[in-house]
């Protein structure tokens, strides 16, 4: 059964990059959101197994989304994909419950390693 996946990034290019980096063997049903509020609306209305989340976005940023997921007790895996790659930021998102942190531009091999690690493929 296909895994419902949400890609949330304000940049179309970035969303495409993530989609293209996913391995063909990964059976996913992909939805997209271009800011944090859109993402939360989707997350609250349907079951999402995995979220690829950007941090710097208009309306509501990635940190805000992580906080809302934690507060609402939503059940999904979050992998943060961000241009802000400083160690302090990585620590912060991990504390907020993110599974992993990938820096932009996305490296497909690294993504596969992470997906395998968490048994998603």
């Amino acid at each position, binding site marked *: 059964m296909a895994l419902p996946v949400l890609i949330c990034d304000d940049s179309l290019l970035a969303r495409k990059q993530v989609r293209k980096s996913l391995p063909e063997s990964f059976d996913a049903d992909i939805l997209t959101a271009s800011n944090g509020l859109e993402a939360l609306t989707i997350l609250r209305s349907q079951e999402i197994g995995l979220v690829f989340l950007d941090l710097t976005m208009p309306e509501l940023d990635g940190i805000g989304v992580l906080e809302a997921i934690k507060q609402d007790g939503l059940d999904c895996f979050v992998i943060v994909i961000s*241009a*802000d790659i*400083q160690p302090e930021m990585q620590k912060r998102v991990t504390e907020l419950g993110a599974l992993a942190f990938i820096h932009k531009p996305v490296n497909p091999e690294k993504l596969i390693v992470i997906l395998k690690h968490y048994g998603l493929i």
Partner: protein
Amino acid sequence: MNTVFSEEQRDCLQELINVAMGLASDKLARFLNTFVHLQVPAIELVNSTQIPAQFEAQYSSAEAAFVSQGFLGNGGVRGEAIVLYQLDNAHRISALLGYDTDSASELEMLTDISSILTTTFLNGLAEQIDNQLSYSAPRVLSSRQNNVTQALIDTACHWELALKVDISYQLIDHSFNCDMLLLIPGEAVLNIQQILDRIVEEY
């Protein structure tokens, strides 16, 4: 002027710049040993004749500086990067860079700071488009004794289009703000558009 870039090209450029900012901030944070707060840089394409007016209000005080550095890459990517900032901001970051007024003049400090900001950022941009840039030595085009607006007018008239990137660096216990302008000549804009199209097609 905004029409010269399609929405897709613009989105692509914005993303490349965001990532470049991230790479630059990470390097700066490691180098300065402090956390650098990254803000999404706003990009704007402006007709170069509009630049002086845009910056006049912000930098009309005598305490502003303006440093220029040329860059040149493969495939006809070239232009001039300009960093504008208030001098008291420069003094704040200079302390972090370990300068003391005895060993370096104010001008030397200004060129160093600008060069570090410009080259780390542009290297991050070049890395993503598989390019390599070389740089000319930074030059202070205006500091306290000269008029920033006039210097901008003199510089801007050589270029058709400018990519304005508002960069704001905030350091954990200091704030440092500056503006960066990438001035790009007409034919280089075409080359950059081709590169953007290639990236958009790839995905």
